[in-house]
């Protein structure tokens, strides 16, 4: 019987050549074009030998070896590495690798080596025993792995479906068609979250998913979960509230995302199964509830108890445990009535277990249910200093705010709240007046008179979207970017996308709460004063491109910078002439130039412009060109400072020695 070889090689030329040589010698070849595919095929096909190229994009050869060796399904398969000479130094050591061959390899030597490896493997009794032992482990794992793999495969086409559905929603549709598409989208969303749950569930089962250990504010995941669930509750006319015990420490150490995930799951579930009444989320510290002994306060671990109570249909006593198993519901009719819930609670149970806690349900059928869970956190070492919080609040005070709002009641409330927070407010009754005020009030240096614009979306004469577009249009000539925040009662994604497309930076839902408002606009204000944190040039990338030759990079820099100004002029001209082809061509050249210098930020902006040209849509062109201008200036500044050369040489010297 001929031996099976898995050939993992990204270069089509090399793969073809190796395949021909091996097939002629009577081996059976399976090809994989990258590390990821290699891992998958290794697990599926169980080849006798894996031949691995070390130079591959994304997952390189060495990472692939590591993963092959970690997976019990594949860790016994001998791996033969094909490596370029200069990579031998970084080779993983010892028994992970059966043999290494230098590229380009000599066919006869490769065949001899393969012969050696396959024979050695076949005769080794010890290896056979090991293999048998691992077959048992494999069987345990295979179902979970299969689920995980399948789910990954399902997710990609599903994203496509969702993307296309979104595009379709943006076209002219009859209301009947709109209804169909909305249903498609809702179903896709449900399927996507189910798939996500399956993946996470399997990851936990095979021990791949770990928890983060970061300090966080315990209120954060709670607020976040409520925020996510609130629209569903409002839709059904249910009350949704939280009760957080006062003695709960504010700051803890743990995985905020996972807490949020479990809470969201339980709260949305509660809403799903409740027709009238409401859902209450309460949070207690377990120790203080059970015993008030002082020494528990000093213990470094803290157990928090969460409870989600609803007034829904309830759960019969005999189902209260089984609902935490995958794909189980209260009864099968519930699947039809309520959809979903196949994986959610099973995942929640796993996450809670990971967090050192328990999950259980109390219920009175017909009266409602309460889902409880506990989780352990470490106490944060230092509580935040109030001084820091105060200074952060001060940064967002005394702003000049333009409020565009047509309803007198809303105007009154907003103005009162904003003034109370220490801001100055100018009111516009509609979009047209807002644009007018924006222009008339003139400017303070490079920036607009207003620090911030709050824009109602639905207004008479000129709505918020149009007004935003007009302001953004004027800014193209004037420069600057005034944050515009939409105030809207609609919070669908579609609507938010519309706001974003018009040029709005954020949105808040009505009625506007002042703390929420402050939270929303703070990031925009602080960003303006900060210097960009992303380095204009990734020097390490640039050095890799020239193979570490600093002198070569120097001449490339000199040549590139000489060319870049002319290219940018061409781009501006192409934009002025509204010529998409010319925009595409000059942006493409700028992209190439910037890419070669490791100037990733500038390269990405050029890429965006190239795509605009390619698609014939130059609407965002001038703004992007302005951005690119700034990015290029930063690249030039970076290379004008002789310091880069010193650093480059130092890093190369360090790599050699």
């Amino acid at each position, binding site marked *: 019987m001929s031996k099976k070889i898995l050939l993992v090689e990204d270069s089509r030329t090399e793969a073809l050549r190796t395949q021909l040589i091996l097939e002629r010698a009577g081996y059976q070849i399976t090809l994989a074009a990258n590390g990821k595919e290699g891992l998958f095929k290794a697990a599926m096909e169980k080849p006798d030998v894996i031949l691995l190229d070390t130079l591959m994009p994304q997952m390189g050869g060495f990472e692939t070896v590591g993963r092959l060796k970690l997976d019990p399904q594949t860790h016994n398969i001998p791996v033969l590495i094909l490596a370029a000479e200069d990579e031998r130094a970084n080779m993983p050591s010892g028994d992970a690798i059966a043999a290494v061959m230098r590229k380009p390899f000599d066919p006869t030597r490769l065949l001899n080596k393969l012969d050696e490896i396959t024979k050695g493997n076949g005769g080794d009794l010890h290896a056979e025993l090991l293999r048998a032992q691992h077959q048992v482990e494999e069987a345990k794992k295979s179902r979970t792995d299969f689920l995980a793999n399948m789910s990954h495969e399902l997710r990609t086409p599903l994203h496509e479906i969702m993307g296309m559905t979104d595009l379709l929603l943006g076209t002219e549709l009859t209301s009947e068609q709109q209804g169909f598409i909305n249903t498609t989208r809702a179903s896709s969303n449900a399927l996507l979250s189910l798939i996500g749950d399956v993946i996470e569930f399997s990851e936990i089962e095979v021990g791949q998913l770990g928890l983060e250990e970061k300090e966080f504010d315990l209120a954060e995941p709670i607020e976040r979960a409520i925020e996510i669930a609130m629209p569903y509750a409002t839709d059904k006319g249910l009350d949704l509230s939280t009760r957080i015990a006062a003695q709960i420490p504010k700051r803890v150490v743990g995985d905020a995302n996972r807490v949020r995930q479990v809470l969201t799951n339980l709260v949305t579930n509660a809403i799903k199964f409740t027709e009238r009444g409401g859902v209450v989320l309460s949070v207690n510290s377990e120790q203080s509830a059970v015993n008030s002994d002082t020494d528990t306060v000093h213990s470094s671990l803290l157990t928090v108890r969460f409870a989600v109570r609803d007034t829904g249909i309830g759960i019969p006593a005999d189902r209260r445990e089984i609902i935490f198993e995958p794909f189980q519901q209260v009864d099968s009719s519930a699947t039809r009535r309520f959809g979903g819930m196949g994986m959610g609670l099973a995942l929640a149970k796993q996450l809670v277990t990971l967090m050192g806690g328990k999950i259980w349900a109390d219920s009175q059928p017909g009266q409602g249910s309460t889902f409880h869970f506990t989780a352990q956190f470490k106490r944060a070492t230092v509580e935040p200093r109030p001084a820091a919080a105060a200074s952060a609040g001060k940064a967002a005070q005394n702003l000049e705010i333009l409020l565009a709002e047509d309803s007198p009641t809303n105007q009154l409330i907003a103005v009162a709240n904003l003034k109370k927070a220490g801001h100055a407010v100018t009111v516009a009754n509609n979009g047209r007046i807002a644009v007018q005020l924006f222009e008339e009030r003139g400017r303070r240096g490079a920036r607009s008179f207003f620090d911030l614009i709050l824009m109602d979306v639905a207004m008479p004469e000129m709505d918020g979207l149009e007004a935003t577009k007009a302001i953004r249009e004027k800014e193209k000539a004037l420069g600057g970017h005034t944050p515009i925040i939409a105030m809207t009662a609609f919070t669908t994604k579609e609507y938010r996308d519309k706001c974003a497309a018009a040029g709005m930076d954020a949105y808040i839902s009505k009625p506007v709460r002042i703390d929420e408002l402050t939270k929303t606009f703070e990031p925009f204000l602080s960003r303006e004063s900060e210097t960009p944190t992303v380095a204009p040039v990734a020097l390490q990338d640039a050095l890799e491109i020239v193979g570490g030759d600093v002198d070569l990079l120097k001449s490339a820099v000199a040549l590139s910078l000489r060319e870049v100004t002319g290219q940018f002029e061409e781009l501006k001209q192409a934009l002025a002439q509204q010529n998409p082809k010319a925009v595409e061509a000059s942006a493409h050249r700028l992209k*190439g130039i910037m890419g*070669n210098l490791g100037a990733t930020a500038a390269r990405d902006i050029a890429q965006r412009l190239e795509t605009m040209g390619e698609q014939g849509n130059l609407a965002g062109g001038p703004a992007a060109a302005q951005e690119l201008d700034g990015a290029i200036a930063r690249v030039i500044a970076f290379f004008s400072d002789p310091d880069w050369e010193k650093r480059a040489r130092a890093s190369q010297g360090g790599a050699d020695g």
Partner: protein
Amino acid sequence: MGKARILCVDDDIAQLTVMAGILKTDGYEVETAKSGTDGIAKAREWKPGLIILDIMMPGMDGYEVCRHLKRDPETEHIAVLMLTAKGGVDEPVDHAYELAGKVKDRLKGFDSGAIEFLTKPVKAKDLLQRVKAILWASGLPV
């Protein structure tokens, strides 16, 4: 006999300088051309073992140059490695049509007679590795 001759064709001078520098350091004989027509002329005259050809160039683009080279009995045997800045087919994409576009570009390149692709920006290591593989497969000194 020394190492193979390599002709680099690109309208971006910095790119040409970098590629030529890397290849020369590795011991290859290198010639450069700044346009498609210039490239064709140099290919006929200088007879390189490998041509590294940029796709997007003003005037005659890389596909046209490659087709031309493959029609000419003087140059048809020369291996062509194409440079693309459209991103690798392995990189993640937001939409299937983006991937389709990239694949289409590559198919077009293979149809025009190219034997391999490299995505810009090219790392020195990848460039040399790929060049060696092609030269080896064409039976030339690596």
